[in-house]
């Protein structure tokens, strides 16, 4: 009996962690190139609303997912233009993007509140794998986009750490001058990864509105974009650690829900605070830890690049 509850909780943790994971992966790629994009929340919201809008219009979740990625990528391109071409302060441009994305999504989603999804994507049980005891029901009876994240995480890790384009990416984020001298086009690489990062954030948003919820609610990301930014720090800009972190945060969210359903004597509002409290506590603990271990962000993170 307790085992069943644990399996259900793990499955819920993976599901709740997936939007965070996509957004965090996108931000890792972006920050590895040396650009901080604080607009994740806005890009996720834009992805969520555009994904929902297009799915309602076309009855095709696939089209919705593509639209969500395009929306996230388009918003990220604004930030790229601001941060790279115009050399604007990346923090303030990212904040502008977060606020703009939130406004844009509420505007576009005005008539989608209460609209049901015409097609509800069902979980896909992976043949064979879903029958493995414990692990099967927890990890292999999920939505297709969850499986997508299983593939994307090792792929992103391999790309960053073991390939030549990945080396260029890291070089641009750590020392753009050196990369430039090596003949790497710093601006082009940064543009590319910011936009890819935005597309992944949009995908994370689409997972929320098309699979997790599935519906459109104003500001439905409820701070997940910001939690994803914190996740990038805990993950030390490493996709594999981001996976663990995202599921842990998903677990906290799922746990809050479970306790609420069980009818505990705690106010539901305190349970809703859990992920945010947890983020603050982990962020503080991690700051202490990382100072001791001397690990940190890509060296050129947040600095505009100006050729000598």
């Amino acid at each position: 009996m307790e085992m069943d509850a644990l399996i259900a909780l793990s499955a819920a943790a993976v599901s709740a962690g997936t939007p965070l994971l996509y957004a965090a992966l996108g931000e890792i790629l972006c920050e590895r190139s040396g650009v901080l994009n604080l607009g994740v929340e806005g890009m996720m919201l834009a992805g969520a609303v555009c994904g929902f809008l297009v799915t309602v219009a076309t009855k095709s979740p696939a089209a919705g997912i593509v639209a969500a990625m395009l929306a996230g990528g388009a918003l990220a391109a604004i930030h790229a233009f601001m941060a790279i071409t115009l050399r604007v302060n990346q923090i303030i441009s990212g904040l502008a993007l977060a606020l703009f994305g939130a406004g844009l999504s509420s505007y576009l989603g005005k008539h989608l509140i209460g609209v049901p999804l015409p097609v509800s994507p069902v979980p896909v049980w992976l043949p064979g794998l879903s029958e493995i005891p414990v692990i099967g029901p927890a990890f292999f009876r999920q939505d297709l986009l969850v499986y997508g994240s299983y593939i994307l995480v090792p792929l992103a890790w391999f790309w960053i750490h073991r390939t030549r384009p990945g080396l260029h990416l890291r070089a641009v984020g750590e020392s753009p001058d050196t990369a430039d001298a090596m003949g790497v086009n710093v601006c082009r690489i940064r543009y590319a990864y910011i936009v890819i990062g935005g597309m992944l954030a949009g995908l994370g948003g689409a997972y929320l509105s098309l699979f997790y919820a599935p519906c459109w609610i104003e500001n439905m990301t409820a701070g997940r974009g910001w939690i994803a930014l914190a996740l990038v720090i805990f993950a030390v800009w490493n996709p594999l650690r981001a996976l663990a972190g995202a599921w842990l945060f998903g677990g906290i969210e799922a746990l809050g829900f479970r306790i609420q359903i069980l009818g505990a004597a705690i106010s539901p509002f305190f349970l809703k605070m859990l992920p945010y409290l947890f983020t603050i506590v982990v962020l503080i603990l991690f700051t202490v830890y990382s100072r001791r271990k001397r690990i940190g962000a890509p060296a050129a993170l947040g600095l505009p690049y100006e050729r000598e």
Partner: protein
Amino acid sequence: MFVIERRSAPSNLYRILSPVLAVLSALVFGAIFLKLSGFEPLAVYGSMWRGAFGDAYGLSETLVKAIPLALCAMGITVAFRMSLWNIGAEGQLYAGAMAAAWLALTFPDAPALALLPAMVAAGMTAGALWALIAAIPRAWLGANEILTTLMLNYIAIFWSEHLIHGPWKDPASFNFPLSPAFSEAARLPAFGDTRIHAGLIFALAAAAVLTILLRKTKWGYELRLIGSSPVVADYAGISIPRHILIAMAASGALAGLAGMAEVSAITGRLQYGLSPGYGYSAIIVAWLAKLSPAGILAMSVLFGGLLVGGYAVQFIGVPAAAVNMLQGAMLFFWLAADFFGSYRVIFRGRPQEVR
């Protein structure tokens, strides 16, 4: 091909024109958006203008919205001056509102002369303490204040929802999530029969005090020095952690004061939707005003007008969120306008090949 060159300094004319240019560009952008979604942009802007500035009532409502915007933006300015990114004004506003509401609900029979100053003090203290939760780990450990202040916004809002659903719920509210109404003594006085309240005096006083502090005192100078060059500040023997704590506390206190004024003067009780995102809009206000208190007063009136105008056009079906989008666009255009002040773009043909 083109190259980008740094200008020695933006021209004076451009410095004055650039905010205007940014606002106009954002309005053009908004017009395209409205047109695409089937509205008549000029008609929408016309009703927004009439709603916000067209008559005495609209104008007074615009000022009512400008008060919390100005107070929050001035708090944000104190932190932003030293490159401390306090984006938690929303949560600090709620913290101030809760503390003020607690006093008003606990001492319903207290006279206004004692209760109102106490509520002001409580609101400012609560806002400051709420900001310090993020400032202390930032000052001593370097924990990212952007994320902690933002997380604290959600926590403060959920806390206020807990209070109005649970311990502070009005038994006579027919199950609506509201606190009981405050006594008359706990209500900030208003001017005439408008809703413009004494918070306006707080905002004007805060602007005056802040202008002097930032321009004329050692503290203001040190804030700017830390903001532009923390290494130099450190060499000069300025204690950065201490300044972080003071700046964040001051920042939170101003936002807390905004929260106190909202519950005391506008709602008269703790309830849902106390702030339609004042703390977030205030970030844009502060930045558009170039972190100057006088500029903030002007920008707050503009943004207050946008909010009121946004409500006005809801009746013709334009989503109120259009205003939030417009605000974000204004910040983008302002950032771009700033770029063209300090850089020039020179277009030229492809560089000639050297033979």
